[in-house]
């Protein structure tokens, strides 16, 4: 992997990747380790071995819930949750098709709503996401319940200063940080 990848990964970790001594504490506390192909401590190990590209197609990046348990408990002060955010960035770059479904798609649709309205329009977000995942009927019963309790707004409620929100999005650089 190139120089940039290595330095960004180290920067995100907040410590040198080489500091990880494979104690496994991150994996022990990770609530979704059971569903990961590479467990948190293995992510660190692969990076140490210079095999970071194997991680970029990994399912682990997208089942991580960003719960921050690993970051909280690592005795070497490695910010693994933030490191995973950075790997997500490189994963989307290497495999743009990851955003076609699941969490990366959800994130994309979510941010599109924020970009457009300055706020999340929950009903529109859910409908769009379900449509793109071709599961239009998913959660219909829930949606019905929520509408009846006024837990879903029918129309978006945008911010007034949309120019400023647009400025934030246009200043966003295609960089991991």
């Amino acid at each position, binding site marked *: 992997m190139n120089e940039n990848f290595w330095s960004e990964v180290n920067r995100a970790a907040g410590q040198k990747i080489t500091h990880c001594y494979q104690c496994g504490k991150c994996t022990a506390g990770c609530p979704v380790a059971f569903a990961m192909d590479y467990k948190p401590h293995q992510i660190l190990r692969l990076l140490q071995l210079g095999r970071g590209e194997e991680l970029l197609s990994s399912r682990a990046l997208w089942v991580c819930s*960003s719960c921050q348990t690993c*970051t909280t408990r690592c005795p070497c002060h490695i910010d693994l949750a933030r490191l995973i955010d950075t790997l997500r960035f490189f994963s989307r770059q290497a495999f743009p098709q990851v955003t076609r479904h699941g969490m990366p798609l959800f994130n994309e649709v979510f941010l599109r709503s924020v970009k457009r309205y300055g706020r999340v329009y929950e009903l529109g977000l859910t409908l769009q996401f379900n449509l793109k995942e071709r599961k239009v009927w998913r959660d219909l019963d829930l949606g019905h319940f929520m509408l009846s309790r006024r837990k879903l707004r029918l129309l978006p409620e945008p911010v007034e200063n949309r120019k400023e929100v647009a400025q*934030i999005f246009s200043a966003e650089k295609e960089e991991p940080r």
Partner: protein
Amino acid sequence: MKLAYYPGCSLKGTAREYDLSTRLVARHLGLELVEIPDWNCCGATAAHSTSHFLAVALPARVLALAEDMGLDILSPCAACYQRLRAAQEELKRDPELKRQVEGALGRTFEGRVRVFSLLEALAQLGEEALAAQVVRPLKGMQVACYYGCLLVRPPLTSCDDPEQPQLMEKILAPTKVDTLDWGGKNECCGASLIFGAREVALNLIKNILHAAAQVRAHALVTACPLCHANLDLRQKEVNRFFGTNFAIPVFYLSQLLGIAMGLNPRDLGLGSHFVDPQRALRMVGS
């Protein structure tokens, strides 16, 4: 005390009752809340999973708006709270990023504003002030206080001890509700994995409900709209998926406190829960 109120998107929709009950309880406790004019979304997990710049710049606008008001912020949504706190820390730590964010917003930051979760804001009032408002003690009800992730992790932004948080128990002590010692209080509920990795999230939700059932909790208490949506709205789905039969109502902290303060359950938004809280409420004569 007067605070700049940042409801966030969830409290305007899915978590409407959290907004209603927080405002109502605050009013009765003499906490003046002024909604931040024209606030925007904090970006939540979607932003930090996508771009570090967005993850800081979106909450930064909210921080700047509050700075203009000259008030500290109350952020009842745990996710918003964590994003605002994280953005504050990043702006402090990374002057180059701060410069870029200021450029994009056309605003400058002095970094004067403090950000409080609902737990901190209520705890600050002190036990006596809370006790003075309790007119309907919740004796006999056993609850499991559920903190989830973002109120207490990572340590840099935590509002309480990351492993053994106690603020909710302290806040609820004057209500005489029995707060249980249990193992699930800071486990992860899966947050938005419920959309993008459903089975994984259902597993996490089941584990939390199981831990609460094990200690015979009559109800769960939370201070996060994402946790509430997962634990309450998805409980039936968990039962369907795993063949369990959980029926544990989930209160927002502000709702439970409001009941003890004798406020009208309807005004506290208690009619909009998926798992009916009536049985738990009847136990304490509400």
